[in-house]
């Protein structure tokens, strides 16, 4: 043991500035770190390490091992070799980029790719601005009671599963739903809403809006409450009307949050509500409802072609990572904080 002082002493000495978060990289911090040998620090912090261990293990097994397991995209993975996936992995042939070649020649893959991008773009225009507008409308409500009630109600669908959300839509707009029922009673031909591939993009956006528009306001409401009220008063005194105040005070105040959420959305551009699409794929058909995530599922686990699906998944993940890095770069160029500036 190379420790000369008692561990408790070392603990109190070292841990004190802990949560006070000294500016990272400050000289005091650097030198303080060097002074204590690793063994002493381990002895001081072993309890913290023990606390981190369960989470560490779960992430290792269910996140990191699968991320490494992506290498089966370069294999002709055969699940029937050996008695478990590990043996199958060891015994399967390596085929390099063969799966990717097949993938890029697969029209079904490109169709799923196009659908995904189209839906992301559509939702960026018709979904993304809605929580901002709703937040501004809610923020301006004078009665806090009424505001609380509306918030309670509109947050609720966020906690519904996609199965429930789709069920609600089927109950209202499906072939045996309330709308069709009413239209039939009125002697009209009911609209085909839930199974129409041509309008599917509108349907999924409506579902997403219904589920999450209320929840989406939380971040904006928080940002709105940090805007200095004196700015509004000063602007009003200078003769700025309601809309000018909205444009010159409210929106600039929301700018950092809007950019942050845009980055996150762009980084996730290739993911569009997986369960939502899987649930409706049968009813609407592949042409419209196949997105990258459902493609990965159907062309791997559902059909036993694991290497192929893994290749599609890896391709998607790689592009997604590039997108989020690029979006973050753009944010930094615009002078915003982006995601990883802790």
């Amino acid at each position, binding site marked *: 043991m190379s420790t000369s002082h008692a561990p408790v002493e070392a603990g*109190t000495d070292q841990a004190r500035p802990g*949560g*006070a978060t*000294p500016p*990272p990289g400050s000289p005091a*911090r650097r030198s303080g770190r060097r002074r204590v040998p690793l063994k002493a*620090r*381990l002895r001081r912090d072993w*309890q913290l*390490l023990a*606390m*981190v261990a*369960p*989470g*560490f293990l*779960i992430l290792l097994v*269910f*996140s*990191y091992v*699968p*991320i490494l*397991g*992506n290498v*089966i995209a370069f294999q002709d993975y055969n699940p029937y070799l050996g008695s478990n*996936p590990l043996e199958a992995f060891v015994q399967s042939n390596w085929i390099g980029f063969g799966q990717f070649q097949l993938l890029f020649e697969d029209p079904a893959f490109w169709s799923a790719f196009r659908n995904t991008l189209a839906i992301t773009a559509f939702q960026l225009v018709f979904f993304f601005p809605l929580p901002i507008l709703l937040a501004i409308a809610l923020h301006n409500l*004078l009665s806090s009671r009424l505001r609380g*009630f*509306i918030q309670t109600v*509109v947050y*609720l*669908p966020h*906690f*519904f*599963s*996609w*199965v*429930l959300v789709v069920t*609600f839509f089927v*109950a*209202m707009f499906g072939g045996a*739903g309330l709308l069709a*029922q009413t239209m*039939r009673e009125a002697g009209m031909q009911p609209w085909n809403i839930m199974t129409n591939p041509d309008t599917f993009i509108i349907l999924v956006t409506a579902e997403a809006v219904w589920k999450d*528009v*209320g929840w989406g306001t*939380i971040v904006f409401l*928080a940002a709105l*409450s940090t805007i200095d009220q004196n700015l*509004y*008063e000063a602007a009003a005194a200078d003769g700025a009307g*309601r809309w000018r105040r909205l444009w010159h005070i409210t929106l600039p105040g929301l700018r950092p949050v809007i950019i*942050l959420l845009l980055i996150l959305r762009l980084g996730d551009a290739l993911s569009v509500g*997986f369960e939502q699409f899987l649930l409706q794929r049968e009813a609407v058909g592949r042409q419209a409802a196949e997105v990258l*995530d459902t493609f990965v599922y159907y062309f*791997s*686990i559902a059909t036993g072609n694991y290497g192929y699906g*893994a290749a599609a*998944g890896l391709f998607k*993940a790689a592009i997604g990572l590039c997108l989020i890095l690029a979006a973050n770069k753009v944010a930094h160029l615009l002078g915003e904080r982006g995601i990883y500036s*802790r």
Partner: protein
Amino acid sequence: MTVTIARKRPAARHHRPVWEEKPTPVGQAGKAVLLGLLVLSVLFPLWVILVTSLSSRETIAAAGGLVVIPQGIDTSAYETIFAGGAVTRALWISTLVTVIGTAIALTVTVLAAYGLSRPRSVGYRWLLAYFLLPFLIYPPLVPKYLVVTGLGLKDTIWALILPPAISVFNLVVVRGFFQGIPQELLDSARIDGANDFRTLARIVLPLSRAVIAVVGLFYAVAYWNVWFDAVLFIDRNDMYPIQRVLQSYLLAGQAPNTSGGSSGVTMPPTEAIKMAVVIVTVTPIVAVYPFIQRHFVKGVLIGAIKG
């Protein structure tokens, strides 16, 4: 990371500031219609589904399917689904998954959040990066499937419980809250000879009830809502969680098979049974949610600032 434990809300603005102009009638009306429609879009379907689930065969037949205006109450649909059979079993499975899962996930998350809350501890930077990285890179579907099945978790509730037992988002929320606790409190515990486990249990946790409640709700809802993991990992239909049963009855068009030993008794109308399944799936969420909702702004705000 900025941690704002925004306990104090700005005082409710009941009065319009003097400098603000009176709202135009058109603007007011537009806003009222918009917000009213939004609220109705949530409450109306819930109402219709609830009323239909409580309607008798005659009412449903007269209405032609779904019932908007209640005509008496008939609980036979609920009696049927609770009489044993697929829905009852699925409710048990889902309850089990939710209770055990939430307990495990909360424990894992709270421990990790505390372990990662002290920037000068051993390996801090590496560990933090390790825990945050899965926020950017999701575990890929196919290898994850192989790992879970390879571990022999298929057709057990552990396949539904363990993989999502730590969510990076929730971890960040809890950790942010822990870091906002005044350092003097922790120091005084240490001086009194408390180790980290004791400090966590005696000082930190009692101060963190609100954030634990919110994160607990997030986990519980996620476990209650688990559907796709059940598609992947649960093949036996007697192990189905409730969402899977709901999907097979309402979306995949399977007839509700509630053979709970009701021999010879006339079955309640299918439509009512279906809607009753929807109601029992929604109820836990609607029941728990209002108690925890008031903490949202606080809890989510912290996570949102980090992004």
